[in-house]
């Protein structure tokens, strides 16, 4: 439930995408604390600074790693846009820095703002008038209410099933403890060790869900872009071209990229995680380390949102044999990169023609990783592709938005506290307070009535009564 006066909200205030500067805005009673924490300075130092004045300072993530150097400003309420304490961090534009600073603010206790919530607070504090507020009311109703009401629909999806499974497992533990409390003559206390095992497993599943969630993945890791293709097609050279510096080991001996290389880049505001993969080939002379590398490669392909299929124009038949099965597997989210056009320009028309049935024209990109020819076109197409459907849509049918992600994180935290309580052998009914908090956090996604679910479980699974 929303609690306007006590929670500090945060959001990226600048429009998504490119731009020289990005702004993170915080509003609420802890704005100063969170601003100080993001700069890794004591609150007292923040408080000594002049209000409404820009200060240049480094911004760190929650582990203390530098994110960016930015301008910070603190505007105490009520003389602020929302009427509450407001803080802003103006950093370099680009999704990566903004996302990381947003994540840091969340880690330090802010809650992600809902649509229109800054304006709503401004209205609630008398900063804007009623006619403006009515419009915001419509906005809130249109966005969040629609979201809440669609929750039932979403819950039919895979996320819903995952959450329901987590809830029912936590509820079972909760019910086991509670049944023994409410019916002590009839039901024995559950074993701490078994509960700890189950809670550890549930915590792991919550974490797996968080890791799988694309929103979380993109915030933390960037959009996965894999480079795949036959051995010696020049994938590592292409990676180096994109990165702009020598990072991969490049040799003429086939099969040297046995370990996967991963590299972050910020492509005009798009966070990308580039993955080079081992070249694919068949034959009797595949060594064991190579086979492991190839298994990893397949895994990388599955985890990536976009695949660059790299073909060697100097060896068209061999390339085609390897590319086509991959193209079928990655249909719709792959680009065909025809490399070494500098060495085999004369074969280009024939190659394009022979792939025309399998790729759209704009998805076939002839380049030379060696000279850089064709690279601007490739990167432009990559951005278009990345900005399109697959980035913000579901992966595995799991649509996890920021609010849901926060709820999962909250639940994970409460489960950890419950485990700590079991570790200390505290009375089991105290553990139920943590479990109830975890279930309440998940209920923010599912909308289930926590208390009622526990009772249902008790009456279903325990034979109790007079």
């Amino acid at each position, binding site marked *: 439930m929303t609690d306007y006066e006590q929670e500090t909200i945060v959001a990226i205030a600048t429009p998504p995408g490119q731009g020289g500067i990005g702004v993170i805005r915080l509003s609420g009673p802890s704005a100063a604390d969170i601003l100080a924490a993001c700069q890794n300075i004591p609150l007292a130092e923040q408080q000594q600074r002049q209000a409404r004045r820009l200060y240049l300072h480094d911004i760190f993530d929650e582990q203390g790693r530098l994110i960016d150097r930015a301008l910070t400003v603190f505007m105490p309420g009520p003389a602020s846009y929302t009427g509450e304490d407001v803080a802003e961090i103006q950093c370099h534009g680009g999704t990566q820095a903004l996302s990381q600073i947003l994540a840091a603010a969340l880690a330090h206790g802010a809650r992600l703002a809902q649509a229109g919530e800054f304006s709503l607070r401004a209205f609630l504090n008398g900063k804007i008038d009623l006619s403006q507020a009515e419009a915001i*009311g419509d906005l809130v109703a249109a966005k969040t209410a629609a979201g809440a009401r669609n929750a039932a629909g979403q819950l039919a999806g895979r996320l819903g099933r995952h959450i329901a499974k987590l809830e029912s497992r936590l509820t079972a533990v909760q019910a086991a403890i509670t049944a023994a409390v409410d019916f002590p003559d009839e039901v024995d206390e559950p074993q701490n060790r078994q509960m700890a095992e189950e809670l550890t497993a549930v915590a792991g599943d919550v974490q797996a869900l968080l890791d799988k969630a694309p929103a979380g993945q993109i915030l933390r890791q960037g959009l996965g872009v894999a480079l795949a293709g036959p051995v010696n097609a020049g994938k590592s050279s292409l990676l180096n071209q994109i990165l702009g510096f020598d990072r991969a080991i490049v040799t003429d001996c086939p099969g040297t990229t046995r370990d996967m290389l991963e590299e972050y880049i910020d492509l005009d505001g798009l966070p990308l995680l580039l993955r080079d993969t081992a070249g694919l080939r068949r034959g009797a002379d595949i060594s064991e380390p190579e086979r492991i590398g190839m298994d990893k490669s397949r895994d990388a392909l599955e985890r990536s949102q976009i695949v660059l299929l790299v073909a060697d124009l100097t060896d068209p038949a061999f390339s085609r044999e390897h590319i086509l099965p991959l193209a079928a597997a990655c249909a719709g989210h792959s680009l065909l990169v025809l490399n070494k056009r500098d060495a085999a320009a004369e074969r280009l028309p024939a190659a394009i023609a022979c792939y025309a049935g399998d790729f759209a024209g704009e998805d076939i990109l002839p380049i030379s990783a060696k000279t850089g020819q064709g690279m601007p076109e490739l990167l432009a197409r990559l951005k278009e592709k990345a900005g399109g459907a697959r980035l913000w849509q579901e992966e595995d049918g799991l649509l996890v938005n920021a609010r849901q992600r926060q709820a999962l994180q909250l639940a994970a935290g409460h489960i950890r506290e419950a485990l700590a309580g079991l570790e200390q052998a505290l009375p089991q009914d105290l553990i139920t307070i943590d479990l109830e908090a975890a279930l309440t956090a998940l209920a923010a996604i599912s909308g289930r009535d926590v208390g009622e679910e526990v009772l249902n479980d008790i009456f279903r699974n325990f*034979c109790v009564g007079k």
Partner: protein
Amino acid sequence: MEAYQSLLQPGEYLAGTYQTVVIGGGHAGCEAALAAARMGAKTLLITMSPESVAMAPCNPAVGGAAKSVLVREIDALGGAMARITDQAQIQIRMLNTGKGPAVQALRAQIDKALYQRLMRRRLEEQENLDIRQGEAVKLLLNEGKNRVMGCVTANGAAFGAETVILASGTYLSGRVIIGDYDYPSGPAGYPPAAALGRFLRDMGLPVRRFKTGTPARVDKNTIDFSKTEIQPGLRGLYFSYLTRDGEFQRPSIPCWLTYTNAQTHKIIRDNLHRAPLFSGRIEGVGPRYCPSIEDKVVRFADRDAHQLFLEPEGENEREYYVQGMSSSLPEEVQAAFLRTIPGLEKVTLMRPAYAIEYDCLDPLCLKATLEHKDLAGFYPAGQINGTSGYEEAAAQGLLAGINAAAACLGLPPLVFDRSQAYIGVLVDDLITKGVNEPYRLFTSRSEYRLLLRQDNADLRLTPMGLPYGLIDEERQRRFAAKKEAAEAEMRRLKAYHPKEKELQALGLKASHETSLETLLRRPEIDYAYIAAHFSPAEPLAADAAEQVEIAVKYEGYIAKQQAQVDKFKRLEQKALPQPMDYQQIQGLSTEARQKLTQMQPANIGQAGRISGVSPADVNLLLLWLKAHPQSKAGE
């Protein structure tokens, strides 16, 4: 007087005028009448039979998990249940002793007849309270039919009243079912109240049909206790904060445990077609937590035994209550399956088990004071509101009595929220979520249970009852002494830093910041240890010592719960206008608009607990409230 005369029909006469009339003398009615009279309202209790007040028609026990907190809360507000239980108990136990302080629970077996006699005496001793035998058959209403003006008995005796508390239990249109045999009846063979049930239906109040049941009573002289396991009680435990150790000389009579077996289950299965629940003879909704033995045998078919307890109904009675064997199978089947059970081979029935169906009202129509939203001055309380259990009934009776009297005496309403009392949880659940089956309290229903313990009900509630005249001097004195002693000891524990040598002498690891408080926080150290080695100037009373120990030992979890409560309170304090036109708020979902319009929640917090009201709807309400600061909520 004249106001009432004009409401009478031919054949009715004005028998008296009161501020509060209570219909029904069960656990709800007794507490209601006592509370109203104690506050100074001129009160009448109408009961079908004065000798059957405070009857316990089902199990001969008071308390248990969650319920024992209710009993203590009633006591903290000056109610009668706890004291009378202490005087009438024949066995007492503390449940959940191995668990945390929030869930430890007292349960007493009571001598039912003695309990009734003591309650009757208590009622008769109460100033401002008249008792009248009679069956209430209708309510007196004003012309607009939106205010209650009193009630009329079957004999035509009309009683004018400013407030009427309806505590009719399971009597309204009651029907008892035993196997293929059923007849109109109240519990335990008492006559039902059919006329009042019809009157309420004719008034257009939504009435629903609930069902409950009770097991057989068997003859003690036909039980072979040697084949069962003894379940002894303890001594020195009391429900009331006022009861002093040794004040009442009570016996301690054991209960006995035995088990069903394959033979029992076979007889039940073979006769299932004669069980009215399965044959469709019962239409009422029964409670899941109180399944009949035939229900258990069917639903848990893999269990080869179910436990049952044999509990005395009184100190001298031969009747024993067979806990766990509630049934509505025919009498002869009951006798047959009981005789398969070790210890009961030769048992004879004294009363058969039966199921009872009765009318109850929809509690969604009630305010947190238990006053009906559409009928001013009318306060339904107890089982009529769809609850089950003596304690749940008594708690509602107390609350209804307090608020009915407060309305007459010009005092503000007294309501409890979910963070203050189990009474608050009970009432909020009833009026916000409604009931689909007879409602019973469980610890899991209370999200702030670590704060709502049976050991601190007085600290939570006694000060709230004080301005209403509910707390007598003795209770005030005892309350203040406990509170002050606990607080003083807390201060001492924080301030006292034992010397390193003292600690070493005890074999304790020390650090420079060790205080008695930090010592007590260690799992291996309890308050008794502190008191023994670092004793206070005056030894601490056990109840104060318990508070100190809990406050220190569970500090972390108490702080967690307190933070949750603070958050809850902020929404609870945002009152909504009464009545409120939800049509004018743009953007609410259709379901939320309907439910809010129907239920008229008192505040934002309550609105958010209504099923079908989403967080987005709550945001819109908050927005609307801010935009219309002039719409002050008021009763």
